[in-house]
């Protein structure tokens, strides 16, 4: 499974790519495969403040509806609007074209608690 080491991972299966004070996030390929075909994505609006560890959106797949969690708090400065019509991008390319949010964060410290690629790989092997 593709788990690049340029980013951080949460135990709830999101990825976080840091660039300065902007974090791009999405869900991992493992999560996308587990959810099966994703049919609908609800993301927060741009400029919305989101709180670390709280649900900030919803993912619907053929099998289930689940909350989208985000481990960092901050201001949403971008979201992937292509997912509205093409939620399958998440299944096809969860780490790339399936990205979800860009968040400007004031505090990068929650990221320190997240897993690196090796630890995440171990986490899903145990899951």
């Amino acid at each position: 499974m593709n788990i690049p080491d340029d980013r951080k991972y949460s135990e709830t299966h999101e990825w976080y790519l840091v660039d300065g004070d902007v974090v791009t996030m999405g869900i991992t390929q493992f999560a996308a495969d587990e959810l099966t075909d994703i049919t609908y994505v609800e993301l927060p609006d741009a400029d919305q403040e989101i709180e670390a560890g709280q649900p900030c959106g919803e993912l619907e797949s053929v099998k289930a509806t689940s909350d989208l969690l985000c481990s960092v708090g901050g201001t949403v400065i971008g979201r992937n609007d292509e997912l509205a019509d093409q939620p399958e991008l998440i299944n096809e390319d969860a780490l790339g074209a399936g990205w979800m949010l860009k968040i400007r964060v004031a505090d990068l410290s929650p990221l320190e608690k997240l897993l690196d690629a090796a630890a995440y790989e171990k986490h899903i092997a145990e899951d």
Partner: protein
Amino acid sequence: MNQSPLHNMHVRLGAKMVDFAGWYMPMMYRGIIEEHNYTRNAVSLFDVSHMGRLRFVGDDVEACLQRICTRNLAGMQAGQCRYSHICREDGGILDDVIVSRDQDHWLMVCNASNHAKIVDWVRKQTTGCKFELTDTTMSTAMIAIQGAQALDECDRLLPFEVKSIKRYRFISGSYLTFNYVIFRSGYTGEDGFEIVLPAKAIPLLAPKLLGDGSGEAIIKPAGLGARDTLRLEAGMPLYGHELSEQWDPLTAGQSWCVDLGKDFIGAQAIRKLEAQGLKSTIVGLELEGRRTARQGYEVFAGDRAVGKVTSGCLSPTLGKSIAMAMIEREWSDPGQALEVDFNGRRTPCRVVKLPFYKQKK
């Protein structure tokens, strides 16, 4: 946990396996939507070995099944199948089953989730009846070949004359010492067959139908995920969703499989319900937008809660969000505008006639 005789094949094919009613079964292989579309456009193989298979032999079988089943089984010929419900005294649905009559025995196929309950119920309700009930679920296996090309492919690949089997009929016999039953039936809204073979024979046949992994075969495997969205588009009820002990067959919208002219367990209660008028019924809903209504979501007419969703999906064939729901009768006419509550936010929908999808002839 029970494993299908095809377990090794599923693993080899890379299936995503799930626990389904105590069985470890394939949910999908390549993707639920892809497998769904492939079934509509071509043909798929489903392992349905988890379904209960009960064999009845003896003088009193017909009379006893008549008492247990809501459907009238009188006059059934060898080679015929009938869909029926099994109800409690109060009319609550215990299961939906397919009853088949063969030359010297009868076969009942029930849901995996109700298997133990139905065996218990049948035994309890038929004490003193002269027949032998054999549970053949573990000694046999069952696959379904379903799809637009199911007839042609089965005709090409099976050593039997299958095209001449009529809908809801079957053939049975022995081939190379293996007993087989081939039903012209299914649960996808497409034409096709359901095949019962000895557990030890199915691992020989199923991989052959799939081309032994050559990639050239027309029949491809599909999992229980696609089976669920296919049956939903076809407006077919699923036990635990549209059917349950809290509802009777009329309320569940399945009056066609109830014969109130005969006596069966639950008949009295159902006659009474019919005379009083039904409070609710199962309807189809078409929702605006792409969101999927899940089981248990409330349905509103203005401020009034008028029912609940029983199943829903984003229909791969129609490209629309569809659902079935148990709705109060006065709000259940086709065209009725309603709203589904998604966690506090309402999505408009309207009642439509079932099925959502009908196979092109």
